[in-house]
């Protein structure tokens, strides 16, 4: 289900980009614009990655903007007043995030206060703390931290017409794609499952490499000194690491288990409290990271930093296919969901649509995306994507009611199951 869903979201993202590319006469896919797009949204996407875990576990975190803000001011002041180097400031910031996260995790996991309440309190608490500590002033940050939040990779080596760092990055990603495809096929053969047809695999690899090549060109061909931005690299690392944690580790499985069926998880030996604690704590650490990236980009920490971020992050997660009732969601889906919102914002802005109308459109997109999910779920179909591209996988995900255990259509069940996109 999730891979189909992700494929659909990815497709929607591409369609959206092409749409704006055409309507704006080619303003979207320019080096400068995509670089700015990544710089301007990487912190929201990082928040979305933490948020999806929180939402899978069945909670919500409203405090991320405030946590980002208070981390920003502490780091900015520590660098300015104590004279510590910027990278030590970043480590300090992550530490601040961990401490705040432990505080919130304590209330949620060990006292049993719902995440909504705990983090609503945190939202006020840490917003207040930001303004108290910084006395509502803006505090500038040094160049090092500014590069951390909005810098570019270095230029080096022979003249390839591209930024060589970006080129290298693109090559690494391409190699990794080929490698993982080969590995997947080997595993399939070893297990005695028929591997996907060679043609399909080759097509997939070729298409991926072409896309990667184009993206590399796009980011690398900007004016001299620009590249795939540093916050983008941080985002890439965070996304890969958390995708791995969520899908391949016991800790990740435990998050899904707690959100999917808490009682069953407890009886399977999952430490519910520890899982909840870690999920909440992790969110604040990522919020701290996001806060520092933003401060670097804004070149100073201010009293209104991070206002409303929690809503952007939550929207990204739900567009990315997570369920309000928990247990469902993916890191990649959330990143794609965040990118959809980012492209929408950017495209509308380039088209000269005002921020008022942009808000209206974003709100509708969120509603329609989730409504679509709920609808396809209630129809027992994976999604419209599954209909357009009837694959073997797509059919498997369709329900076969005859095989299902008799299940009464009680009204209370509707809402509960419907949202589990």
């Amino acid at each position, binding site marked *: *289900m999730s891979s189909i869903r992700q494929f659909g979201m990815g497709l929607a993202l591409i369609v959206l980009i092409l749409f704006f590319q055409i309507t704006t006469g080619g303003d979207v896919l320019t080096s400068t614009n995509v670089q700015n797009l990544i710089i301007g949204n990487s912190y929201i996407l990082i928040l979305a990655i933490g948020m999806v875990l929180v939402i899978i576990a069945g909670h919500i975190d409203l405090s991320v903007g405030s946590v980002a803000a208070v981390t920003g001011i502490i780091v900015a002041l520590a660098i300015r007043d104590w004279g510590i180097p910027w990278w030590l400031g970043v480590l300090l910031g992550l530490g601040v995030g961990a401490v705040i996260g432990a505080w919130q995790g304590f209330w949620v996991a060990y006292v049993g206060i719902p995440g909504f309440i705990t983090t609503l309190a945190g939202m006020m608490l840490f917003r207040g703390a930001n303004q108290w500590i910084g006395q509502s002033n803006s505090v500038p940050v040094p160049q090092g931290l500014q590069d951390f939040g909005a810098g570019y990779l270095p230029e080096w080596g022979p003249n390839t017409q591209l930024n060589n760092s970006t080129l290298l990055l693109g090559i690494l990603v391409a190699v990794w794609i080929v490698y993982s495809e080969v590995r997947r096929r080997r*595993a399939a053969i*070893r*297990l005695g499952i028929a591997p996907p047809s060679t043609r399909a695999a080759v097509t997939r690899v070729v298409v991926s490499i072409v896309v990667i090549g184009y993206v590399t060109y796009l980011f690398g061909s900007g004016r001299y000194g620009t590249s795939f931005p540093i916050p983008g690299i941080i985002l890439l690392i965070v996304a890969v690491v958390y995708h791995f944690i969520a899908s*391949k*580790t*016991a*800790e990740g*499985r435990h998050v*899904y*288990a707690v959100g*999917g*069926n808490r*009682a*069953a*998880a*407890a*009886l*399977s*030996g999952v*430490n519910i409290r520890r899982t909840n604690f870690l999920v909440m704590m992790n969110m604040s650490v990522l919020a701290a990271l996001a806060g520092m990236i933003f401060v670097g980009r804004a070149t100073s920490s201010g009293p209104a930093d991070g206002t409303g971020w929690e809503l952007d992050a939550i929207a990204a997660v739900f567009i990315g296919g997570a369920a309000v009732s928990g*247990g*469902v969601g993916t890191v990649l889906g959330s990143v794609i969901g965040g990118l959809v919102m980012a492209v929408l914002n950017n495209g509308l802005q380039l088209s000269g649509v005002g921020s008022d109308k942009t808000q209206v459109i974003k709100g509708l997109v969120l509603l329609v995306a989730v409504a679509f999910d709920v609808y396809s779920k209630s129809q*027992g179909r994976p999604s419209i994507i599954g209909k357009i591209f009837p694959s073997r996988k797509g*059919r*498997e995900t*369709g*329900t*076969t*009611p*005859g*095989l*299902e*255990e*008799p*299940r*009464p*259509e*009680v*009204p*209370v069940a509707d809402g509960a199951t419907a949202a*589990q996109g």
Partner: protein
Amino acid sequence: MAAAPAVLEMRSITKEFPGVKALDNVSLTVRLGEIHAICGENGAGKSTLMKVLSGVYPHGTYEGEIYYQGELVEFKDIRSSEHVGIVIIHQELALIPELSIMENIFLGNEVRGRFGIDWGETRRRAEELIARVGLRASPDSLIKNIGVGQQQLVEIARALSKNVRLLILDEPTAALNEDDSEHLLDLLRGLRSKGLTSIMISHKLNEIEEIADSITIIRDGHTVETLDVRAGEINEDRIIRGMVGRSLSSRFPEHEPKIGETFFEVKDWRVEHPEVPGRLVCKDSTFHVRRGEIVGFAGIMGAGRTELARSIFGRSYGRFLSGTITMDGKEISMPDVLSAIKHRVAYVSEDRKALGLNLLDTIQETVISANLPRVSKHSVIDDDRSYLAAEEYRKSLNIKTPTVKEGVSKLSGGNQQKVLLAKWMFTEPDLLILDEPTRGIDVGAKYEIYGLIQRLADSGKGVVVISSELPELMGLCDRIYTVFEGRVTGEIRGADATQEELMRLMTGTGLARAR
């Protein structure tokens, strides 16, 4: 006796889902004033047929015709079927726990006065209905505070309040103990004598034999036959033969136990209720299990069998007071579920959906979920090994699914139960505690589960089976303990057990050895 006129005729009902014909040319004739049972294995199409009848699947989504009281009817939704007096009571009750009995009875059907709800009239009518169904509770009691047997009665009261003429009950006694079941069946008999027609879906063949006037058997979406019980000569074996299409010579596979030495002992186990301090749910319980042995626990619902099992399994229920557990001669402590798993104890819950499975998971994810380290390297889960493990169980337990990547929510009850068993077999337990392992699954799947339990015992494990079906315990277990009000009241060799003796011990009758 001349046949009463047909009140309901469903003719050639065919209902297709994408890729599956759930009902194929099914016909059903229900006569006025009878209790008509519908039997069939899980997935046979019983519930689908009832959903067609009650308008859950509206007219136009199926083929065939429904005649009700002689007229062709085309229901758009549940409301339109209720409007003519067809009321369905689902297996999973649709009551609101936080509302009172009275409010639940009239929910969606409120007695309106001039200014909103007429509470006086509501109360009067509720009391009348409560008396009619033999409910011993105040109209103001909250649903969450009454037992499931009484909740079932509230559902029936609700149906009566809607002037029901054809009552459909889906597995009405599945969650009830013997007493409550008996009361419910009596009530249905009483309603029948007043002219109410009922359709009842049930897996409990003894009840059907006892109460039904006619039985329609459905298999794989086809009507197999309709039996007239009043004509006589209908017994359980006859029904089973119709349901599975063959005669089950025995409901239990042949088994020669290979019993070894005692390896698991619980002594003087005392546990307090989690919410009510001072109330003991386990009172000095003592029992032991030998290798290769299948040990049964009999007791009426609420006797404390599940509580005993869960309090042993990582103290996952109640507050532990005192007692010892000895395993292989060593005293062990299992303060949490993880340590219980490490000590190779497994507990398979009675409540598959609420406590056993994460319905969002695939089969593969479920199988490995209680023992992730076994398929992990450096705490990274190995997909391939997980797949192979799940695949192995799919084959050995005969789990019917196209692939182990299928979601567990799409499986039938019997197959879900097998997946749940696989999940706990994957923890490589020495002691398996199976709580109601065959609840809500069909006859064929039960037979397979029994065989599986016997295989587990033969491999040298100790198996504890908690069950509310006495014939099941007597057919399966080498030894049976009885539990009454948190106390172990007796111990009988399986071969020697009689239902009467077990019932006597389970209900505390003539109990002399109180400690």
